[in-house]
């Protein structure tokens, strides 16, 4: 195990988030079983007081959770110098079998945590806790994933041995690469480009319609913004990254986080998460637009979410276009 400050912070942070989620889930079960606003009993009033504390704690825990994804990637990137064969985070994550599952779970948990924060924010806008049962049911779904992430991350850091010879990203994300993550490399550039443009076009069109008041476009916008996230990540590996590296055979999704490439990877990933989380949240809270106590606040919240998602996806699109058009690389398909 390598005890760098960032590793200690990540392990303590994940353990704290996992424990808080378990504590909140215990209250969540009570809320799901016993919550009744018509009841003035002592236990109900206790639940009402406790949910305020619990949701505040979880809001901070989930804010850390979303940020910890980037700290984890940064740490993996920073530690690559310690491992023979590693050229970037890709090699560090490959030191043992827990690295890639951890990063994938962290991405999933960051998405879910972000959506939960938005549901919690929306619930807090009304005085009668309209989403409280949904919020805690959602939390019960996320908690096992958070605990699994803490366990996987712990196993990954515990298994980091400096004498391990790992693979560099050239072999992990090269033409001969195998495995679910590496298979993104083999996706053909032409169809991926078409899929990316189509998904972003649908997202922008439906998002603008929704923002201008067409409520029916909300479901399409939400689904397309989530699909655009996955398609964009695949496109980043498949055909955008070679333009950044100016090397047709290099598809590493982590080298773009390095100083040589102006840390542009962080901008790509932040903009993608910033686009996906509010976009997906629109679909989650849209069904509650007719709830009496949310009628006054939900339209504004939904419009702001759509706006935020569109701004982040616009940033991603501009970055991608900039990278492709300023690159010295010309692919055959061009």
């Amino acid at each position, binding site marked *: 195990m390598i005890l760098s400050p960032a590793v200690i912070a990540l392990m303590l942070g994940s353990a704290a988030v996992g424990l808080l989620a378990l504590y909140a889930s215990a209250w969540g079960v009570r809320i799901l079983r016993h919550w009744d*606003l018509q009841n*003035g009993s002592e236990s109900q009033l206790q639940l009402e007081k406790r949910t*305020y504390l619990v949701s505040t704690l979880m809001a901070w825990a989930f804010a850390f959770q979303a940020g910890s994804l980037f700290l984890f990637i940064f740490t993996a990137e920073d530690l690559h110098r310690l491992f023979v064969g590693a050229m970037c985070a890709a090699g560090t994550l490959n030191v043992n079998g827990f690295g890639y599952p951890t990063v994938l779970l962290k991405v999933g948990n960051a998405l879910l945590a972000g959506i939960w924060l938005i549901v919690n924010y929306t619930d807090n806008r009304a005085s009668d806790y309209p989403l409280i049962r949904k919020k805690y049911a959602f939390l019960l779904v996320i908690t096992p994933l958070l605990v699994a992430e803490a366990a996987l991350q712990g196993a990954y850091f515990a298994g980091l041995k400096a004498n391990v010879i790992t693979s560099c990203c050239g072999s992990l994300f090269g033409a001969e690469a195998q495995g679910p993550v590496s298979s993104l490399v083999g996706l053909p550039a032409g169809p991926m480009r078409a899929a990316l443009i189509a998904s972003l076009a649908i997202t922008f069109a439906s998002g603008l319609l929704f923002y201008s008041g067409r409520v029916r476009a909300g479901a399409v916008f939400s689904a397309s913004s989530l699909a655009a996230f996955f398609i964009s990540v695949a496109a980043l590996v498949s055909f955008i990254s070679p333009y950044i590296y100016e090397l047709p055979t290099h598809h590493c999704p982590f080298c773009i986080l390095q100083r040589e490439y102006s840390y542009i990877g962080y901008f790509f990933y932040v903009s993608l998460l910033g686009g996906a989380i509010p976009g997906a949240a629109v679909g989650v809270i849209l069904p509650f637009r007719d709830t009496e106590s949310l009628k006054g606040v939900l339209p504004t919240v939904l419009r702001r979410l759509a706006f935020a998602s569109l701004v982040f996806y616009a940033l991603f699109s501009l970055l991608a276009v900039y990278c492709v058009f300023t690159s010295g690389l010309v692919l055959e398909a061009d």
Partner: protein
Amino acid sequence: MSLIALKGVTKIFNRGRPDEFAALSDVSLEIEPRGLVVFKGPSGSGKTTLLAIVGCMAKPTAGRVFVHDREVTSMPDRFLTDIRRHTFGFIFQQLHLVRGISALENVILPAYPSGEGLASLRDRGVRLLDLMGLAHRAETNIEWLSGGEAQRVAIARALVNEPAIVIADEPTAHLDTKLSLDFMAAMERLKAEGKTILFASHDPLVCESAMVDRVLEMRDGRIVAERRAP
């Protein structure tokens, strides 16, 4: 229709500790608008706790409170702040005026968070001080006012957000007879304007006053007797 309704309200302090104390036990009550209601009882009978719960300054251990038919006990604090600010005006036993600033500034202080313009606030503050016969003392610092003047500044401050309900806890406890009568006269004017006034007091001068519509006698956290004006 009741303005305020309490259903089975219980308040227990230091729950589960050796010094556990039940300040209110299963109190149910309805208060109609535009009246003067006095909660009468000895020290420790639960009057102040009851007013604090009605005024959304404390939450009960059990039971529900409705204000304007809106259930308030389950509301998070950020919503209660708004209700407290716009529905209730408080006059405390210790007046809690801020020393070092003028009478007018004390009066308009609770209205600052509303975001209303300062000029309009000052106009309203001066009007309220004028109503209390204190317009000429508006710019005087609070520490230079007499006890009676300070009391009237506190009343003006309670009215600055134009509340429907005025709550006063032992308002005459530190006043002599003349000042107490002046205070009651001021309350009579508010009542005539349609305000609902709730007092906690065991002062006979208050409880026996002709302007009181209802006296609720409290003991050991319960309402044990009620008297209505004929």
